[in-house]
């Protein structure tokens, strides 16, 4: 088991390397670079462009060097925590991202917990009461959640929250706390605002998870070993939790790998609509203005999350499922 975990960690290294190369290559693909976008912008505003200054900037940022060199420079920087320089904000990437990263992690974490808390009981109830009125009702609500576009839901929720609770429109906190350091008041304000994006972003994920949990559990409930458990005289609830639910969890655990990045990148539109201080809108901007180090660092961040998520789910699966732990690697 220990060897397995070590091996999985080692495999992460080449995976991340390949991803970083791909990201860098893709960011380099569009013609031109940030400086050209910058010059065009200056010209449009009717300002004069000093060629020597451009040349200085070009050298400063290393645009005159070959791609491969720049890639290794970027890669080496990331290893020591230097993610490069954002041209647009004229600040190091770490400073630009700063607080937003933690707010994003907070938002994602709360959303995942929300999804699980809501989806689990409903999924189990739906599966054990298949084709009952309550199953149909919950299914209907779930499908509504899947079908309503997130941004629309976001607008409706904003309106309602403002009317009913007087919560200020947009942002993750009241306007007066923006750009302030953390305080009790700011924390309270964040908590007050947090539930709207959590519900909005969580709805479709919850609905999808209910459907999957229901389908998986229904499959498992048909299995012979459930009858065996009942034939032993086990209480219905215990027989449900110990055997079929445990089996149905496999899909859910393997889901962790994809749930982290999808919540962070999937919430961009909602974040724009709600003007949230998360990383999503920043990434969109960075990609649009070819602010390459900022965009690259973001993509790298998402990739790392995916790889870590997959690692966590693999290890969890190996711990929970003896078939993977003991029979792993055997091929027929």
């Amino acid at each position, binding site marked *: 088991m220990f060897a397995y975990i070590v091996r999985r960690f080692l495999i992460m290294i080449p995976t991340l390397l390949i991803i970083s190369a791909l990201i860098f290559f893709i960011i380099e693909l569009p013609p031109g670079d940030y400086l050209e976008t910058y010059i065009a912008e200056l010209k449009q505003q009717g300002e004069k462009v000093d060629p020597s200054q451009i040349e200085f900037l070009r050298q400063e940022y290393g645009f005159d060097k070959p791609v491969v060199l720049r890639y290794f420079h970027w890669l080496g920087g990331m290893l020591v925590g230097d993610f490069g320089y954002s041209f647009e904000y004229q600040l190091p990437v770490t400073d630009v991202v700063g607080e937003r990263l933690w707010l994003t992690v907070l938002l994602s974490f709360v959303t995942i917990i929300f999804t699980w808390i809501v989806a689990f009981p409903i999924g189990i109830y739906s599966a054990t009461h298949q084709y009952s009125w309550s199953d149909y009702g919950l299914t209907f609500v779930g499908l509504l959640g899947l079908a309503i576009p997130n941004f629309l839901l976001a607008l409706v929720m904003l309106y309602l929250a403002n009317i009913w609770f007087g919560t200020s429109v947009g942002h993750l906190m009241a306007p007066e706390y923006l750009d302030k350091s953390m305080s009790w008041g700011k924390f309270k304000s964040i908590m007050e605002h947090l539930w709207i994006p959590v519900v909005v972003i969580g709805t479709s994920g919850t609905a999808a998870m209910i459907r999957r949990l229901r389908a998986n559990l229904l499959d498992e409930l048909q299995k012979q070993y459930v009858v065996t458990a009942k034939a032993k005289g086990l209480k219905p609830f215990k027989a449900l939790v110990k055997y079929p639910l445990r089996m149905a969890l496999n899909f859910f655990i393997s889901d962790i790998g994809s749930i982290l990045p999808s919540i962070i990148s999937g919430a961009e539109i909602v974040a724009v609509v709600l003007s949230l201080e998360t990383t999503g809108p920043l990434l969109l901007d960075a990609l649009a203005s070819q602010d390459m180090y900022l965009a690259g660092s973001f993509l790298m961040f998402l990739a790392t999350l995916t790889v870590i998520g997959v690692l966590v789910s693999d290890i969890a699966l190996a711990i929970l499922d003896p078939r993977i732990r*003991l029979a792993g690697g055997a091929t027929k």
Partner: protein
Amino acid sequence: MSVQTDLIRVEDLRVAFMLHGSPLEVVKGISFRIKPGSVVALVGESGSGKSVTAQALLGILPRSASITGGEILFQDPETDGQVVDIASLHRDSSDMRELRGSRISMIFQEPMTSLSPLHTIGNQIEEALTLHREVEKGDARRVTEEMLGLVNFPDPSRAYDMYPFELSGGLRQRAMIAMAMICRPALLIADEPTTALDVTVQAQVLHQLKELQQKLNMAILLITHDLGVVANMADEVVVVYHGEVMEAGPVDAIFNNPGHPYLKALLHAVPHFDMKPGERLQSIRDINYEIGPAFGHKQNESAENDEPLLKISNLRKTFVTKKGGFFGATDENTLVAVDDFTLEIKRGECLGLVGESGCGKTTVSKMIMRAVSPDSGTVEFNNASGKTDVLGLAGSELKRFRPRMQMVFQDPFSSLSPRMTVLNILREPLIIHEMGNEKERLAKVTELMRLVGLDPRFLNRYPHSFSGGQRQRVGIARALALNPDLLLCDEPVSALDVSVQAQILNLLKDLQSELGLTYLFISHNLAVIDYVADRIAVMCKGKLVETAPREVLFKNPVHPYTQALLKAVPYADLNRPLDLATLHAGGASNVESWGPKFNATPDAPELTHLEIDEGHKVLVHKSVDAMELRT
């Protein structure tokens, strides 16, 4: 309520399923009784309501089913004289749960799926104990290990921590028995406990059940369709058909003097070893088939050609299982699935290939079909157009050769696509091989349906609207669509009921003689092989151990493995009980028990196929002389 001496008395039991809102009665007033410590067999085809009856007894009916009438009176010998009506208890009530698993317990047909794959067997067995008895943690483990020892686990304390997927089918079924018995129930319900097991393992499990039953003075309700098992186990027999009891009585009366026509028919539908040459099985419903012009007899198209149709030489296949890999240390395990397999199949014969599960029979058939590539060896096919090296074919040559050999599979449910109509299923081979135009194909498909006795009007139906036997006929029709010379039948009847089995076997036999087909018939059921095959090859652990004409093999089996297999078959005859005591615990494939004549020695590691009689070959040590083995 009067005091009864029966352990269980079922009175006019009725069970109905709710189907599309209307009740469908599947058990229509069944009555029978079980005396303490006796074995009662509930016999019938699938769909006769026997399993549903057992589920009603235990209160584990599916959610859509409910008891609509009658009584199930249970008198526990441990609580003197108190009678409980199980039918009136709610299925999840605490009274019911107390009985379930403690006083009445059950084992199931599929040892592969009836245990949870995620929990150790120790955990699962112990759970049944701790649910019903107040035991301390350490004691529970000790009692569980004792129970595992009682069902003959070789190393109980190690077995306790093993997962079901690490055990063989026979051991899993024993773990199930241990789980069912750990609370010493008064009644054990065994629902087809050995149907999924090999004959030799079946004999051991039956032996186990019988022994425990006598030791613990427990009653068994045995549900089965195998009359051989019934003859060996039961004291009383209840025959059910369509949810009603047809006949009931002591086992000798049932076998020696069957009264009801259904029971008689059932007894006649089972192939047995005493059938006269040419005697037909009487299936309960015969198939009327009709041979069209496209399927004329292959009139010894090469009568002068004496060469065997298929010549398999020195076939070998190994499977490698890997543990770890990439950065970790790789630990390779080589498993020899098929070893030095040499066999000839003559034109127009039916060659039966027998062996226990895992012996490599299916791998052989897959290699012949080119679905699996062998490590070494050759397969040569002979017909009018000359010799073909089957394993050397590739690309379009292979495609052109494919119609010569076709396959019939074991499971009629998963071998037909549920998304295709029968018409499309039967037409597909013709389309792949670009035979005929649209009209000709339709004509041929219609003819195929008649050939297997199905109404061509069913062509537009999907497989799910057919029964298991009908689906298997569709499977046979599909295999015949390309007019093959050789048909590989891989356990074609083992998933079917006895009466349907007789039907399919008769159909296969008739088609073989009428169309001049050659069969390679794979089965683990010796009686079935005996009925259909002309020559029989016995396989064990990837090796061919004995080949002989049918009559010779059954009269004079020479190899100890063949002898053990034959000895383990339960006869539907009270005068020939299984000799349960002499079955060796290690199983028939335990090489050491074969003796020096049949084993390799360090100085002569190669065994040879010695011809001791005409067409009778046995795998023996080099020093053995044919005279020694002839009796």
